[in-house]
């Protein structure tokens, strides 16, 4: 076992896959000797630079993703970094319009085994927090993954690289270097499309991702202490394809669902989760489904405004108390 940060865990997983499969290569801006923004590729240039598989790109997000699609169609397994998630929108055409659709449109002949890594999320430097993963989760054929910690992140990046579909791997900047977790030394994978019950409970189901998962766990402790409410906290880990079964099984037990995420409430990935449970778990529900997520306004800049903007422990607790009253 080693205690790794989420960033170290992702790099460790990437290192293992680069060593095991010479079809895997990294493409990104400043990922050579600079080591990548926020150390996203730390040490990889030293180890793999001479194999020609750590490739630096200029500021060309659409071209980088399109080039990766082309390389993947020819048998390579690209891991392309679009430095910050707000730049993903530059690559919507090759990614959403095409990459996810090629397998279906060629009736299974061609595959696009590529990973798009990207960073997002509220962090100390207050920049590039925007997260448009919900728009990508609308595109058929893509997979969207969002780990909340080191252990899941290492297993998921390895699964993403081995997956024969285009996978968008979302890395929260407030978590990458924030805390360490125990990570097994021996090789392991975390399956894509499988949620994880991070805290079992029976009174309410709370689905939360990334940084919001950690705030939700704190809220759950407070709810247990103050209200005697035992919340079951689920980390989807994969946004698309969503693990409906784990969430529905939990709602059948608790009858109440709260969804917490950092991106805007309107049209956010939580809306899809809520619709799925409303359609398929209606008879189990004893209260409305509530989403705790920011208002539909741009992310403000000043630190006190950001504190008001993002869901905090208190707003999660309040939402649970609201559904508990039914």
């Amino acid at each position, binding site marked *: 076992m080693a205690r790794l940060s989420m960033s170290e865990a992702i790099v460790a997983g990437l290192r293992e896959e680069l060593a095991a499969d010479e079809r895997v*290569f990294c493409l990104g801006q400043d990922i050579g000797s600079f080591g990548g923004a926020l150390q996203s590729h730390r040490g990889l240039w030293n180890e793999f630079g001479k194999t*020609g*598989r750590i*490739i630096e*790109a*200029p500021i*060309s997000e*659409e*071209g*980088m*993703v*399109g*080039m*990766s*699609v*082309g*390389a*993947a*169609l*020819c*048998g*390579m397994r*690209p891991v392309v970094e679009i430095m910050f998630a707000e730049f993903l929108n530059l690559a919507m*055409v*090759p990614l959403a*319009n*095409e990459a*996810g*659709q*090629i*397998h*279906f*449109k*060629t*009736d*299974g*002949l*061609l*595959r*696009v*085994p590529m990973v798009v890594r990207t960073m997002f999320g509220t962090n100390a430097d207050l920049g590039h927090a925007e997260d448009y993963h919900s728009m990508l989760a609308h595109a*058929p*054929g893509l*997979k969207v993954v969002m780990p909340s910690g080191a252990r899941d992140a290492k297993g998921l990046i390895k699964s993403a690289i081995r997956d*024969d*579909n285009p996978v968008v791997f979302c890395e929260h900047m407030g978590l990458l270097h924030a805390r360490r977790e125990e990570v097994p030394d021996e090789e392991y994978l975390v399956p894509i499309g499988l949620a994880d019950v991070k805290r079992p409970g029976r009174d309410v189901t709370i689905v939360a991702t990334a940084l919001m998962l950690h705030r939700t766990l704190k809220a759950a402790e407070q709810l247990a202490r103050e209200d005697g409410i035992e919340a079951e906290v689920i980390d989807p880990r994969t946004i698309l*394809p969503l693990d409906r079964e784990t969430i529905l099984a939990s709602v059948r037990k608790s009858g109440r669902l709260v969804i917490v995420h950092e991106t805007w409430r309107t049209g956010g990935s939580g809306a899809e989760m809520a619709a799925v449970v409303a359609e398929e778990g209606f008879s189990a529900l004893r209260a409305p489904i509530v989403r705790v997520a920011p208002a539909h306004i741009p992310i403000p800049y000043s630190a006190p405004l950001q504190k008001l903007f993002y869901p905090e422990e208190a707003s999660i607790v309040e939402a649970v108390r609201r559904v508990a009253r039914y």
Partner: protein
Amino acid sequence: MTHENAATTASPSGAVDGRVDLLRLMVLGRELDQTLGRVDHHWHASLGEEAVIVGSFAALTAIDVGIPHYRGPLIASLVRGSDLRRLIAGVLGKTTGQSRGRWRGDVTGEVKPNQFGSFSGSLGPPLSYATGAALAAKLQRSGGVSLVLFGDGTVNTGLFHESLNLASMLRLPAIYVCQNNQYAISTPASVAVPGSVLKRGQGYGMVAVQVDGNDVLAVHEAVRAAADRGRSGEGPTFIDALTYRVGGHWITDRSPYRNADEAKAWAGRDPVRRLTRHLIDEGVLTEDDFAAMTREAAARTEAALAQAAADPWPDASALAANAYASD
């Protein structure tokens, strides 16, 4: 060039060569293209542009990746051995088409591990795929090159810029051929491309040449030289293949935005007639040979169309619960 006769002569590397073969492919390609224009009122016809497509694709070997433009992908597919009936079935959306009706067969042609096309309605991604395929060839040390055809309208897109820049920066064996028919729907290249198409390519620090796109031998030679360059590690090439869109943007577009003199001037440079004349003058071909070639093309196309038209439609089994590739 190797021995010319009526039979297909394939070189050991797999490339189609032989001037008569090139003519036969242009004749068959034109016949197929014009036949589909009678069946599909929105067909994007390639009349007059056959030399760019045949000349460039015929210069590829089996390990090279070819990506045609949305105008003429079936002609490109024929150069690399595709079945006529299957191509037509793909245009009609029949279950016997390659994708069983899942994707349009008119703008994409046959898809193979060494041949892609467009997978959405956007212009530009195929250029980035050529860059990516060239990167794969370099990393795999396969000795392969990639070729992509695109129109003069596409040189204005962001992906044109990014794809060529990446290929030049990374010194990749990619060949970018502008099937420059001088019109993007109703917008002339003379208006949309300040400077020139050739100057655009020159701006990326790669070898950039212009060829007479209606001279199939010139196109073939330019692509062959570019492929040699790529295989030798000298990086990408840009080729501005000047041609002309004889018809409208789609088959029923009468293109009132063009003047008749311009069309007349280009009618005298028809690529099929030019090569036919050249081969007859050289004693390689007779008028009867050409007539036979034309009749054969018509017969083959008519038979393939009849079969494809009678083929069944796909049913719900061609849909799926999700679009993923499974392990």
